[in-house]
């Protein structure tokens, strides 16, 4: 009885508003209200919904005390009016009076305005890339690209394996085909496979992911055909090993111990097993080239490998190795994009020191 009386004296939520929840696929209505003055005595706010103003109402959700909004994401139909009311629930399980009833209808949006800054950035950056790709295609000029030691050493590494009569081990990383690092790795594999086929050097490509394995098989086969040596290709050289991280690492170290490759190439996405692979390869005396965009694995590759291709150098690989104007143009576009970002960071940091934060807000999502 006492708790009921206490609930009776607690004001219900007021100034309730309901409106279509923006930037979504519809069937969502947002309800806002003013917190009860006795909010500290409440546990939750309950939100009730009906198809008609007179009811029947059903409870559709609750918000914790202190929170003055709720999104009903289970609205049955778009473009139909629904009626809402809100009440508070005390910590002892009693209820305040209901608020006034408000109505709203939901509808889906065709554009998510919250990510408009992402759209503008994507359009701007893509325009810069396409512009430079087109310019390079029209002029046909070979743009300057700085020396990337790891990529320069690829031919030397393949040559070394040929001279020693030992195989090349190519590890395309431990990620899926959707990872850009894996795709970049396959670009490099194409070139390595062609070179290896020209010199008849055995190539071993153990794979972590079956989809990557199927693509790698095609890439290696194509490389052999381009070298005019389709007979050199064997399905056994590109195979699936394991999709368990450390099982894969132990499998690859076993291959290194048994086959004793002269050249180890670790190119793609790697995780904690990176040092195991690189150091095990080092014990066999192989020349090692690593390339990854995984920032936390770079130090391990730097200390264990002869050459390390870092971060975006991996993505520049196909342009660097082929020297095709189109691909070089895209590298130049990337550099311009980076310059723009750099300027924004410097300007934003300086303005931020004076309390001006609009540059930082440009990047908010």
């Amino acid at each position, binding site marked *: 009885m006492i708790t009921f009386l206490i609930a009776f004296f607690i004001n219900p939520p007021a100034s309730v508003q309901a409106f279509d929840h923006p930037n979504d696929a519809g069937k969502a209505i947002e309800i806002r209200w003013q917190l009860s003055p006795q909010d500290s005595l409440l546990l939750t706010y309950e939100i009730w919904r009906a198809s008609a103003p007179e009811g029947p109402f059903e409870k559709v959700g609750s918000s914790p005390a202190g929170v003055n909004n709720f999104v009903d994401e289970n609205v049955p139909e778009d473009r139909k009016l629904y009626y809402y009311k809100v009440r508070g629930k005390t910590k002892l399980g009693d209820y305040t009076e209901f608020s006034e009833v408000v109505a709203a209808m939901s509808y889906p949006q*065709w554009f998510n305005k919250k990510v408009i800054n992402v759209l503008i950035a994507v359009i701007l950056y893509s325009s810069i890339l396409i512009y430079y790709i087109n310019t390079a295609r029209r002029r046909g000029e070979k743009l300057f690209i700085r020396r990337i030691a790891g990529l320069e050493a690829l031919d030397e590494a393949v040559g070394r394996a040929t001279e020693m009569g030992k195989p090349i081990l190519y590890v395309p990383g431990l990620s899926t085909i959707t990872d850009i690092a894996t795709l970049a790795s396959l670009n490099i594999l194409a070139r390595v496979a062609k070179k290896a086929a020209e010199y008849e050097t055995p190539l071993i490509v153990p794979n972590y992911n079956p989809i990557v394995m199927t693509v790698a098989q095609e890439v290696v086969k194509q490389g052999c055909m381009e070298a005019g040596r389709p007979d050199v290709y064997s399905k056994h050289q590109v195979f699936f090993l394991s999709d368990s991280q450390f099982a894969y690492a132990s499998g690859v170290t076993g291959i290194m111990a048994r086959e004793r490759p002269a050249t180890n190439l670790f190119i793609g996405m790697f995780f904690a097993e990176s040092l195991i692979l690189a150091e095990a390869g080092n014990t066999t005396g192989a020349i090692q080239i690593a390339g990854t965009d995984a920032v936390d694995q770079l130090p391990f590759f730097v200390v264990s490998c002869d050459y390390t291709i870092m971060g975006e150098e991996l993505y520049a690989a196909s342009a660097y190795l082929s020297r095709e104007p189109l691909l070089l143009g895209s590298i130049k576009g990337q550099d311009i994009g980076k310059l723009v970002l750099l300027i924004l960071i410097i300007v934003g940091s300086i303005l931020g020191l004076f309390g001006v934060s609009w540059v930082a807000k440009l990047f908010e999502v």
Partner: protein
Amino acid sequence: MRRRVPLTICLVCGIVMVIQFFVPHPISQTLYNEARRWFIIIASFTLILGLESLTRLHVNRVRRRQSGWGYSIITLVSLVFTAVTGVIWGIGEGSLFMRIYRYIYAPLQATMFSMLAFYMASAAYRSFRARTPEAVLLLVSALFMMFGRVPIGDLVFAHTSEVIEWILQYPSMAVQRGILLGVGLGIIATSLKIILGVERNWLGGT
């Protein structure tokens, strides 16, 4: 034709999925969910390809008595045994499958991870030599970090932990952010090249 069809599919799908990100409408969500489901189904079937590749490789090795063929037998037997126990007796708590996982697979994983300690020591001994100014910088930072991340660091010099925290919060974080920015831009550029068909090596033998 053999190249044009996959390149066209790549272009259309790439552009559609980019647009999909900005469109919250149910049609867009349905498309995304359908694409995701297709991907999961394709990925599941390629597991069969992977299994076939693994089995063929090891059976071939056993048949030809190539070096290490005994290990291939162990691989094949373990593969079949684990799969059969899971299918017949289930994978719930207390099942043979779970016991294999807990008492064989998990300790093996932990052991492989632990080998990092030995490899780190040998890598550090071999590589941390002051050949160039950059190498000296790497060497000094590494020594300081190793010293500071154990209790003795604070016993010798009371503010070691604070210096380490400062290195982690400022220079280390700044460098990581710089690399990640470059990587992010590189990912967009590479994706665009693949979608537009400028980058074609992934097509392979087609």
